[in-house]
């Protein structure tokens, strides 16, 4: 039962990612997979965030026309870089979380644009999505930390 919480969050992140294009094509739904990865980056280790990002990306691979490893690589890199960036400042600070999430979301869009030869998402949708995701970062982190659903992944924070 120890991993029931992380498994539930993992499945919820995939479910929201699958539904997001239908709910709001213009990017008004926060990127839950990215929020989960950055939560682990802020309260766990960079390696665990990268691993979780990779697994989430691989789980999403069947539902996209992108190259198969692209989502996994982008989320893993965002988690790893996010943990490193947050590590140099107070990683639980709301403003730091906001800035890191905003940068990570824009990083994902940039990776997708480069991978598809400049065929990225419309800039307005990318910025909307990044802002919505960044705005949701602190409440999400606080709620998940309070519910302790990702506790097995957070435990290694003291080792970071």
């Amino acid at each position, binding site marked *: 039962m120890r991993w029931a919480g992380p498994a539930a969050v993992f499945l919820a992140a995939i479910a929201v*990612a*699958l*539904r*997001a*294009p*239908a709910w709001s*094509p213009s*990017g008004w739904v926060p990127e839950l997979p990215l929020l989960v990865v950055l939560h682990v980056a802020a309260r766990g*280790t*960079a*390696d*665990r965030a*990268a*691993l979780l990002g*990779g697994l989430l990306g691989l789980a*999403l*691979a*069947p*539902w*996209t*026309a*992108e*190259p*198969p*490893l*692209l*989502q*996994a*690589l982008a989320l*893993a*890199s965002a988690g*790893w870089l996010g943990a490193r960036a947050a590590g140099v400042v107070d990683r639980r600070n709301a403003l730091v979380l906001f800035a890191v999430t905003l940068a990570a979301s824009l990083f994902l*869009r940039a990776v*997708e*644009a480069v*991978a*598809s*030869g400049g*065929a*990225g*998402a*419309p800039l307005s*949708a*990318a910025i909307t*999505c990044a802002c919505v995701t960044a705005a949701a970062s602190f409440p999400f982190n606080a709620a998940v930390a309070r519910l302790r659903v990702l506790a097995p992944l957070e435990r290694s924070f003291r080792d970071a």
Partner: protein
Amino acid sequence: MRLRRPGRTPLALLAGTVLTLLFPRACDSARIAAASLLPATVPQRDPAPVLPEEERLRLVARIEELERERAALPPSEGAVRILRVERPQRVEAAVVAPVLHRDVSRTRRSFVIGAGSASGVARGHAVIHGESLVGVVDSVAAHSARVLRIDDRAAETAMPVSVLDPKASEGAANRGVGVARGSGDGRVHVGFLPPGSARPGDWIVSAPGGGLVGPGWLLGVVTSAGDDDRDGDFEALASPLHDLDDVATVVVLVAEPVRGVNR
């Protein structure tokens, strides 16, 4: 592999990047097959009710009657004639397929349908909804396939198109030929047009040379046209006839490649 050892994670990410660059289409069939195994994330419409045999025969007779009336009509003019005459005659079958999943990526416009190579679907086949083209089959598994929408910005969706004036008389309907490619935001961008050859309200129709997508399929209606960036390339933006985010059922036109040409 123990990721906790310093330096392993960046190496793993680098190796993954190289693999992605080397094999961008790896495991395509397996991915589509995996997607089709899970419940559809696109709401499925109720199937059409089965008609009683008597009603079906009555409708078949009515269709035949209308076909006879249409054949007796004088030749149509302008754009309508072009649409009617240029429709591909080499379509072998029309496969009706439900849309199962939409693309999770915010930069891509594609969907997975519930028909695959077992039904004759192959890469490059045209996918229509009603009277208009909505996409092109990109990769295929046995019982499912991925369709790139016409508004996806991938190079695979680029195709030659004609601009038709729906109100012009015969001979003057075809305003010019250009290349259409998805704009990534729900519209179709048409470039390389002759100056002044498109106006709002004109039709964008597939032209010969589009591989397995036959000529004469409507892509959308021009919403704006011009050379705003003043680069000498007259461009037009067209909106598809249907909301492509709302399409739940499509028809795949199974066609034979012409002289080995396949997209």
